[in-house]
């Protein structure tokens, strides 16, 4: 990777905060409406242009399988949207979990951006939702391909193009497992940039499981991405997302323009987000295993809970989930697998 401040100096990018959506995973979806409003207001004030607010598993994610949240998506979105002065609010939707009915509800609540997420090989299940979103005036319509490390850049491009064809004006390469290294990011983003329509924006969503969140995001910008996801203090699944205040500081040093006040971002991370954490979101042994074995980051707490309940090692569970090539959303597999392992090993 050859980067210099000169090449990227003056480049404008959009940062997108994940605390109030991906951050729902380490909080087991228990962030309150008041906390959401407080955090979103502070980010609005600091100049963060785009903030995601949804159940961790997207609209309609409220379930036994993923966890019931402290409030409904509708309550969160209504409360936050009306408080924003400059920041726009986005919502996430996973077809198979949420439907276009949820999408319409979120639009009525005042979102400006909808992100439709599928596994990296299954973009065609997003047709109903992206087509509908693209037909709504001024709705920023984004396709989001998860676990993008699992396929080669050429295969990924086919899926990104499909989302572009359905009407996405921005497509994301999503490192849900925090598995990618900077060269993996560069290869995927650069090919997409070369082959997609020039007006289609490209985004990158990282996880910090191998400590590569910031480096990967800079690699993405260098290769042509202009939207970068991160979360203040890294509040997100696994070892968290790309820590946004760190990324913003690095951008400042490199002359990449985010429009966010660096010191205010640091203060939000330190004074608002860290005190909200139920446990320190960091690269512990299990989070590192996610990145090392290529496992969906929100499996972390589920694996820890099943390990404790059935006297197993959470690392063993995560490695096996990776070996079986599980995809995002398969949280129900974790207890089932743990029971199999426990029977086999005689721990229950």
């Amino acid at each position, binding site marked *: 990777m050859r980067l210099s401040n000169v090449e990227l100096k003056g480049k404008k990018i959009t940062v997108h905060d994940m605390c109030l959506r991906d951050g729902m995973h380490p909080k087991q979806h228990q962030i309150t409406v008041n906390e959401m409003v407080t955090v979103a207001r502070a980010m609005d004030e600091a100049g963060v242009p785009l903030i995601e607010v949804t159940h961790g598993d997207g609209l309609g994610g409220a379930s036994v399988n993923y966890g019931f949240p402290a409030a409904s998506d509708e309550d969160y979105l209504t409360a936050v949207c009306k408080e924003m002065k400059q920041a726009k609010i986005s919502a996430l939707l996973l077809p198979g979990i949420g439907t276009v009915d949820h999408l319409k509800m979120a639009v009525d609540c005042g979102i400006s951006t909808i992100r439709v997420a599928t596994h990296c090989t299954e973009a065609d299940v997003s047709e109903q939702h992206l087509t509908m979103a693209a037909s709504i005036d001024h709705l920023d319509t984004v396709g989001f391909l998860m676990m993008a490390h699992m396929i080669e850049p050429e295969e990924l491009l086919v899926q990104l193009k499909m989302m572009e064809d359905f009407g996405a004006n921005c497509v994301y390469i999503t490192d849900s497992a925090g598995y990618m290294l900077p060269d993996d990011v560069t290869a995927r983003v650069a090919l997409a940039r070369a082959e997609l329509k020039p007006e289609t924006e490209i985004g990158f969503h990282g996880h910090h499981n191998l400590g590569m969140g910031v480096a990967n995001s800079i690699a993405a910008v260098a290769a042509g991405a202009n939207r970068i996801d991160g979360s203040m203090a890294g509040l997100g699944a696994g070892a968290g997302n790309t820590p946004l205040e760190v990324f913003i500081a690095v951008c400042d040093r490199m002359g990449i323009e985010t429009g966010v006040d660096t010191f205010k971002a640091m203060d939000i991370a330190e004074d608002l987000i860290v005190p909200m954490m139920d446990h320190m979101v960091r690269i512990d042994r299990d989070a590192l295993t996610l990145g090392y074995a290529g496992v969906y980051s929100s499996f972390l707490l589920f694996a820890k809970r099943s390990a404790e309940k059935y006297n197993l090692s959470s690392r063993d569970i995560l490695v096996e989930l990776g070996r079986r090539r599980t995809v995002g959303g398969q949280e129900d597999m974790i*207890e089932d697998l743990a029971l199999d392992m426990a029977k086999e090993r005689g721990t229950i």
Partner: protein
Amino acid sequence: MSNKIKAAIIGPGNIGTDLLMKAQRSDVIEPVWMVGVDPESPGLARAAEMGLKTTAEGVDGMLPTMREDGVQICFDATSAYVHAENSRKVNEQGAVMIDLTPAAIGPFCVPPVNLADAVAAKAMNVNMVTCGGQATIPLVAAVSRVQDVTYGEIVATVSSKSAGPGTRKNIDEFTRTTAKGIEVCGGAHTGKAIIIINPAEPPLIMRDTVHCLTHDDPDQEAITQSVHDMIAEVQKYVPGYTLKNGPVFDGKRVSIYMEVEGLGDFLPKYAGNLDIMTAAGLRTAEMYAEEILAGKFSPAAA
């Protein structure tokens, strides 16, 4: 003259072809028509080779002769969008429609739960919910027949190769129709359905998780027995319907982990999701056929 009821299959794709192979083994159903829309369809050619009458003109191609051909039962294995028209047309010709699409214009039918009721109601159109519904609703019902279930949720994970273009284009219909089936047939006050598509190779066998939240503390012994009984019922028509783990009890949560392996007639064995649909559709048709043969029901134009 055989004592079988003659049937037509509309939609010569993977589902229709698998259904044809199963129907040929039936003691009471005799498939005589395969209806398609594409003259090049390999499914139509295969059906013709097996001695069925075929048309590539859609249902209209069969209508003029279906009465004289004795067709009394039709299966629709096309899509939700054309189903209503197909159903109206064959009903006019006095044939019962068994709907394998998620159109859900007729009452839901999940054989081990309410097949007898559906047949007794003599409905001219019955809907088979969805593949995920067929695989999971029996277990929601197994819990709700023991005690009140306030919330039933299912997660169906299917291999990428077994999720056809219809499912992919209309994935919302899957989640909505399945959720409704969990309430109407499963007996849960509120239903929720989730579908996950996994592209792993070799393809994974369909797996299903059923979570129920009971109103009062679950009667563990009674629920466990009821679940095992229900699984035995489903195994009568889908032998690969297997309990992997559970029921797990955690407070008021009851979780059941299943795997559904198909028979591998035309569809590969991992596609248990499709197999359970065709098997349930045929099972339903057979019950209707038995009623007709016993002189208890005579399908007629509404």
